[in-house]
């Protein structure tokens, strides 16, 4: 299995399209950091407008932790597309190229091959999130320094002490990785059903967009459905910046995501084991 995962990772990182995601993340993070570095105080003044009428804000609020939070809020919504670029291609791309039939004439069981491909895409996903964490968190800490962090919510303001933030980011990145692994599993399932990679990539995004719309619409008809939609739980990494952290809520969301990922991958393997390879 390990040998197969290494082969799959070798193939993933030999493809130029793999680096699109890394380049896109680097570009977005850099642009946000640059913009905040140049004009951050004005931006901060604008969002703290109502707060400053009541409170006196002192110290370095525009610090690395705050900048990282802004970056994550902006970026994590779009990362699923970058994940789908690779995981949607992992089987459908090979079917399209004709290499899938060559792979399957080798003495490797279909289940083992599928698991190796899935773990390789999971590795890619984690690497992408780690890359993002390094740039967004450590890059911002380096540029803007550290300090207490203000978390502005619609109904309250949470101020986190500088010594109480770092672990929250580590937990948030771990949770975001789980969210992205669920997206990766969905693209993986759709990749089994298609014979070119465009279909799974677009379908993954379409499903996420539709589910997100259902999640955000405040219509009673959809409310019963919301707890079961994985998109409803994907952004719960923000829960780690509450005080106190609602552990039950975060764990529940994590469980929903794990169950979805497990179902998507199991279904993908089941379909692939029975599939006739005609390409």
């Amino acid at each position, binding site marked *: 299995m390990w040998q197969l995962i290494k082969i799959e990772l070798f193939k993933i990182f030999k493809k130029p399209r793999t680096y699109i995601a890394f380049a896109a993340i680097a570009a977005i993070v850099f642009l946000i950091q640059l913009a905040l570095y140049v004009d951050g105080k004005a931006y901060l003044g604008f969002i703290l407008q109502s707060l400053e009428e009541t409170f006196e804000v002192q110290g370095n609020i525009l610090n690395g932790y705050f900048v990282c939070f802004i970056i994550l809020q902006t970026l994590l919504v779009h990362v699923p597309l970058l994940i789908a670029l690779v995981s949607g291609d992992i089987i459908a791309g090979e079917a399209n190229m004709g290499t899938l039939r060559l792979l*399957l004439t080798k003495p490797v069981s279909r289940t083992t091959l599928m698991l190796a491909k899935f773990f390789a895409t999971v590795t890619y996903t984690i690497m992408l999130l780690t890359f993002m964490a390094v740039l967004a968190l450590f890059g911002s800490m380096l540029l803007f320094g550290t300090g207490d962090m203000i978390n502005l919510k619609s109904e309250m303001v949470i101020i986190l002490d500088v010594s109480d933030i770092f672990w929250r980011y580590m937990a948030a990145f771990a949770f975001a990785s789980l969210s992205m692994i669920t997206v990766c599993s969905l693209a993986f399932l759709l990749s089994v059903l298609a014979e070119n990679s465009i279909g799974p990539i677009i379908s993954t995004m379409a499903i996420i967009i539709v589910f997100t719309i259902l999640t955000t619409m405040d219509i009673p008809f959809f409310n019963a459905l919301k707890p079961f939609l994985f998109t409803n739980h994907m952004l719960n990494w923000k829960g780690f910046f509450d005080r106190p952290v609602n552990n039950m809520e975060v764990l529940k969301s994590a469980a929903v995501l794990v169950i979805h990922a497990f179902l998507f991958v199991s279904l993908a393997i089941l379909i692939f084991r029975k599939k006739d*390879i005609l390409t």
Partner: protein
Amino acid sequence: MESIIQVNNLTKYFKQIHAVDDLSFSVQKGEVYGFLGQNGAGKSTTIRMLLTLIKPTNGTIQIFGADLKDHRNKILMKIGAIIEKPDLYKYLTALENLRLFARLSKIHRTPAEFIRQLEVVGIAERATSKVKTFSQGMKQRLGIACALIHDPELIVLDEPTNGLDPQGIADVRNLILHLSKNEGKTVLISSHLLNEIELIADSMLIIDKGKKIAMGKVNELLNPADMFIELQTTNNSAALYKLQNSNFQKIVKTKDGKILLSVHQQEVPELAKTLIAMGIEIMALQPKHSLEDFFLSLTTNDNHVAAYKN
């Protein structure tokens, strides 16, 4: 002689389409076995079933004496295959492709052995070039190198000369003959070109619409003394019935109001006499010397009423 492949009553339906219909054949150790049929005859479907890419609807496949369903990985370890055009990883180099397929076959080769393998197929000087820069012929050669890297006992080649120039075709032919005669490999090769099979195969099977039409040793099926006759009579259906129950039953079918049959050259007068004795008047009796003509007439769309003896 040891049977390497034993296929019994193999059938594959794609919804209402009978891609392969009750096919049985066996391939003996060390022989080059030709699998002949027009495009869409069911050759690739059969080969894909032999390589576990497609699940049969019915029938059994035994390779190396073991059931393919139960011993898939053990069997595939000893098979090298090219299915239609060898689509390799275009963004990798020839050497990287070769190394990758060696690892998938769970074998270890030294860098020198990889280069030697590329030398065998004549593309060693392009070892570090990306496959996307290769011509179709070079891809085909690399595909063969990948199929042979783990020194398989059985080589399965589905239309291996597609897209090759005459020199490429000759090279592939010589390589197959070398592998069979000098290294004792068993080769199953499919083609829609009779002359290709005629030049390299020991035995062959002709299929059409998924059904077996003829099977046997190439030198027997392509005996130069055999002739293929186009026959027109006053009553073709009676003539056909009687021929199928006579000594002239090797291959018989009707097409475009004519009866096509295979007879030995010396049997032609006897055939004429027999038909007259049966009260059937002959309107035309035309020899078709080329087996290619006969193969084409045998495998085109028509009511198929073949009778054959194996």
